[in-house]
């Protein structure tokens, strides 16, 4: 437990407070390289999130033209040139595995990049803090304002802030629902109050969560809700780049004057002047000088703050920097620090990413556009016909993933004199029954297969049913049991 929590005076149960009095964090404004990177990523990330639903992608006459769309009604997922059916949900499993391993790889290379720069919690909190600063001023002003009595000005500032927060939160929820329906239509329906109730409900839910999580809970989410800091702590090692206080350079801390005096007297003097700027700018309120810790999201803002101070006092920058534990220890013992990005674990992570990603790309590239599934009737397993021959019934489901209607011919292969009757066949071609499957749909037909008793052995026999696209030439063959008494 590294989060500062002050000891509380009490001695028995009656005196134990029911909650930990967490001090409110007032992050101070900061500027520098990492702040600029964070703004850049914030703008790019939010632009993608808010405007992606409006990007169009032509898929032909029968399909939606939205580039990214989760279509629950028709049970399809569209992502630019990719269209997925519910039975292909394993692609999402693959994506989740990829996401996890990429997170591990990022962590092995450069710590909590995700937390510091990309996590929506960080990004939205950043934006909300910017709004807070606009209305209430920087750190000092905000602390003062919170302590001040309620005046008209304070009410106005607070109200303005909450109003803008709610607007951003509402727009966040509004963009979310656009991924689940045609965006321009839904925007019009929302504006004219014609949209389905679920759209308003989800906007309401997302508005609430954004407002509460980014506006009020902020670093509490990272400290108490998110599992990643716990997992990350178990995955990191001494070779990973982390935002680190270089204590080999910073200690012993002393004021600028003391340090100057010490240096003149050839006494050891650290560069850290204990100005607490790194703590003041920290969005989670931790002291990076205590070392890597659960509360640190490694956003690099303390690097910017410390660099500013070091420049002012005329010492080299990067007293706080992306560094490895190993490098710091190496410098302390007079060795040359090395950064080794290529290690057993990064190679392993990269290999898993390549394997899973490669398998998914291969699957997508060779994805079948004609599918078939075959279900044998459960009862009766077989039927004896008048002439003594045996018949089995099957339900054949043909899957057409193309955007045009297709003619599929069914043929059968099995014991001598096997015949097949397809209920719902529209025509025949070379005596093969033809089934028409509409664009982007499935079609079920019942197939009755008859085999003379003499050609069968008791129990299980095998048949093969082949579906072939008359024009595109795609075929699927399925082997299935044929039962006889």
């Amino acid at each position, binding site marked *: *437990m590294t989060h500062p*929590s002050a*000891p*509380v*005076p*009490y*001695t*028995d*149960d009656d*005196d*134990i*407070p*029911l*909650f*930990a*009095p*967490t001090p409110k964090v007032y992050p101070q404004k900061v500027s520098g390289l990492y702040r600029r990177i964070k703004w850049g990523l914030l703008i790019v990330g939010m632009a993608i999130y808010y405007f992606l639903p409006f990007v169009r992608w032509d898929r032909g006459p029968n399909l939606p033209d939205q580039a990214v769309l989760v279509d629950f009604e028709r049970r399809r997922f569209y992502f630019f040139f990719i269209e997925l059916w519910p039975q292909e949900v394993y692609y999402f499993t693959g994506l989740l595995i990829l996401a996890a391993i990429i997170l591990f790889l990022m962590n092995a290379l450069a710590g909590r990049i995700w937390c510091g720069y990309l996590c929506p919690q960080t990004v939205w909190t950043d934006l909300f803090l910017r709004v807070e600063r606009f209305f209430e001023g920087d750190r000092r002003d905000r602390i003062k304002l919170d302590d001040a009595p309620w005046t008209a000005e304070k009410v106005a500032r607070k109200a303005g802030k909450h109003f803008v927060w709610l607007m951003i939160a509402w727009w966040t929820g509004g963009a979310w629902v656009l991924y689940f329906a045609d965006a321009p239509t839904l925007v019009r329906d929302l504006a004219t109050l014609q949209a389905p109730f679920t759209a308003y409900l989800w906007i309401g839910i997302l508005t609430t969560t954004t407002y509460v999580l980014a506006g*009020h*809970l902020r670093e*509490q989410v990272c*400290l*108490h809700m998110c599992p990643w800091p716990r997992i990350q702590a178990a995955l990191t090692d001494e070779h990973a780049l982390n935002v680190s206080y270089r204590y080999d350079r910073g200690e012993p801390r002393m004021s600028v004057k003391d340090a100057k005096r010490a240096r003149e007297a050839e006494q050891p003097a650290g560069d850290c002047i204990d100005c607490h700027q790194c703590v003041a700018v920290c969005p989670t309120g931790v002291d990076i000088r205590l070392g890597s810790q659960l509360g640190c999201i490694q956003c690099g803002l303390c690097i910017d703050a410390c660099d500013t101070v070091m420049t002012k006092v005329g010492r080299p920058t990067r007293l706080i920097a992306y560094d490895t534990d190993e490098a710091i220890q190496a410098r302390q013992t007079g060795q040359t620090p090395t950064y080794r990005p290529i290690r057993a674990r990064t190679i392993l992570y990269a290999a898993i990413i390549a394997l899973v990603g490669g398998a998914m790309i291969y699957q997508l590239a060779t994805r079948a556009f004609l599918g078939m599934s075959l279900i044998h*009737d*459960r*009862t*009766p397993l077989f*039927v*004896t*016909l*008048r*002439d*003594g021959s045996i*018949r089995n*019934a099957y339900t054949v489901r043909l899957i057409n993933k193309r955007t045009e209607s297709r003619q599929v011919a069914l043929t059968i292969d099995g014991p001598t004199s096997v015949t097949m009757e397809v*209920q*719902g066949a529209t025509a025949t071609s070379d005596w093969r029954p033809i089934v028409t499957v509409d664009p982007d749909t499935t079609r079920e037909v*019942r197939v*009755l297969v008859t085999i003379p008793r003499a050609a069968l052995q008791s129990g299980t026999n095998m048949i093969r049913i082949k579906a072939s696209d008359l024009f595109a030439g795609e075929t699927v063959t399925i082997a299935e049991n044929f039962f006889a008494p």
Partner: protein
Amino acid sequence: MADDKHTQPEVDRLTGIATTGHEWDGIKELNTPLPRWWLWTFYVTIVWAIGYMVVYPAIPLISSHTVGLFGYTNRAAVQVELDKLQAQRNAQAAGLADATFEQIKANPDLNRIALARGKAAFGDNCMGCHGAGGMGFVGYPNLADDDWIWGGKPEQIQQTILHGIRWDQNTETRVGNMPAFGRTGMLKRDEIAESVEYVRSLAGLDVEKTANLAKGKEVFAANCASCHGDEGKGNQELGAPSLTDAIWLYGNSRAAMTEGLVNGRAGAMPAWSGRLDAVTIKALTVYVGSLGGGQ
């Protein structure tokens, strides 16, 4: 109040955090209380629970329970959903009611609706005798084969479902009896045995080497051919099954065949016209035809 209540708490030396004063075998518990928002969430759930109990039925009374502000019950909600579903089905049924069997067959949408509706109705009403998938049992015809006692055209199947078989309460019911030749003394024991052997020879079943097939043929022509036909091919008008194929409603053992001749056969099927609506019966007809034998 004792003074010791206000002494300073014991602070753990290693972490600098106060302890709660609880101690087990020398192990002391650090005081790491919940964050404030968590505590508030807990209070909110309590408020929510009270509101829930007011709004929804919650408290059991002696013979009933509190009904809640809006009188909500799961059962009423289900009924609303069922009514909606029924309305939707009725709209689909309108199309079925007016369509002929040819039209239903030619229209994939209508066909799908008829099959779905027929399948459900079959499960509720027919499966008890005819079995799942119309597999049939001894005495209860298999509906999935290609043999029909009363005809397998859609109109014939519909007629059978509407009016039943040997169902006295329905005036249009299908009638046709296998008489009890033995019990009533119309045929003697040896005549029955001879005709059984003759029928077995018609069906290609094994025949006793000593059987007098000529005598059997005579008995057959005199007593059986009027219904089952001269060649034993059966007659669907009278519900007389073919005796020459591989399908035997009561089995093809000598015992089963003899029993039929001695005691007769008169299995009945209820008329469904008063119990199921016309659209359901039509859907059932389409479904039964699809099981494998429809003509």
